[in-house]
């Protein structure tokens, strides 16, 4: 009697499976919306992101009514444009952030945000890291989240004001009543630490 050979798993698919397994729950839900238009998953995404996006906009100084509108449009795009989500390029949170940011800029300027056009004949392609060498984006973002959680609160606060709320370093110094140089050094320390922790993830 002949035994069936063990099914072989190539290292690549094994790695892909691990990645899928390790993906954060929001990215998994967004994947379900993308593939199956799963309403239950979208409801969960809405419950999670809608209040966060609204809070993010309010802290940028957008009045309540408008921030609600931009938030609602952000979530509408998540629902309608889920097909554009690519978990290899960005985690769900990063993708939602970029949609909200672009709508915010469009709203403030009343024109489209300037972004790279990937069909531009002038585009210089990135030949350093193909999809296989690059760390999967959701993996990287998970490591990043964990790393931010380990920062001292005074460093993560500076990151939050600069990255999420788009404040200039000088404005951060005024808001926190600390010297500009302290803002710079907290930012530098935080970024160094994040890069180190992500490399070891």
């Amino acid at each position, binding site marked *: 009697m002949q035994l069936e050979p063990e099914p072989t798993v190539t290292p690549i698919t094994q790695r892909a499976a691990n990645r899928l397994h390790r993906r954060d729950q929001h990215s998994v839900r967004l994947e379900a919306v993308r593939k199956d238009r799963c*309403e239950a998953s*979208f*409801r969960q995404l*809405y*419950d*999670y*992101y*809608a*209040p*966060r*996006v609204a*809070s993010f906009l309010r802290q940028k100084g957008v009045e309540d009514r408008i921030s609600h509108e931009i938030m*609602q*449009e952000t*979530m*509408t795009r998540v*629902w*309608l*444009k889920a097909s554009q989500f690519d978990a290899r*390029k*960005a*985690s769900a*949170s*990063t993708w*939602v*952030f*970029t949609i909200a*940011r672009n709508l915010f*800029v469009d709203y403030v300027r009343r*024109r*489209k*945000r*300037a*972004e*790279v*056009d990937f069909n*531009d004949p*002038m*585009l*210089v*392609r*990135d*030949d*350093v890291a193909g999809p296989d060498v690059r760390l999967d*984006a959701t993996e*990287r*973002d998970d490591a*990043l*989240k964990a790393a*931010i959680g380990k920062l001292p609160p005074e460093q*993560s606060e500076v990151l*939050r004001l*600069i*990255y*999420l*709320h*788009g*404040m*200039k*370093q000088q404005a951060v110094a005024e808001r926190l009543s600390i010297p500009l140089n302290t803002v710079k050094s907290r930012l530098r320390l935080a970024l160094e630490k994040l890069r180190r922790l992500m490399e070891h993830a």
Partner: protein
Amino acid sequence: MAQYHPSEDLLAGYASGAVDEQTEALIAAHLTFCPACRRMVTEHEAIAGALLERESAPSASVAGVAAILNASPSRAPSTFNEPPLGTLSKIAPQPLARYVYEKTGEADTEGLNWTFYGPGIKRAILVGDEKGALVRLIKAEPGAVFPDHGHGSDELTLVLTGAYRDQTGRYATGDVQCAPAELSHQPIVEDDGVCFAFVVSEKPANPKNITAKIVQRLIGR
């Protein structure tokens, strides 16, 4: 491959949507030429995304999600009309060509309002006026020498075609020169091609002193 890049602060500002529109257009154009800076921006966006998860979150409204799920599927998100882009898109990446088009209504390089700036050098002012140009395109013939000038404020120059040199280095397509307010320089365009550049400053560039101003006028007339 670009050798000179915008500062990390500027890239972070771009990622968080905090820079003004002319700087945004300049950075998006540089990113078109520079994969390394694109990776940096992606990293900054990932930091912002991770921070978004840490925002405080009261509960979401039930009506809000229902409104989205019950909307008719034909409702497409609003899109902006893409302008028809002419010869401008031969010298400028799309986001910059679009910016120029939005400011001037011109899609062709030839249609811009070019004015004399020095021998072999013309400029088209997009924001500001002759006395205080804040945003402009520069077109310099091969071998052209700029008037020696100071800045009075920080200035960003993105080279689109050709190349120029000054005491700080050689700047070619895709490079961004970040000239601090205190820099005084006299860029010289290389011999082998027309140099188009996009320049953004916070305040108008000042000719170095009154003598330079007079010399500039004499040359000009």
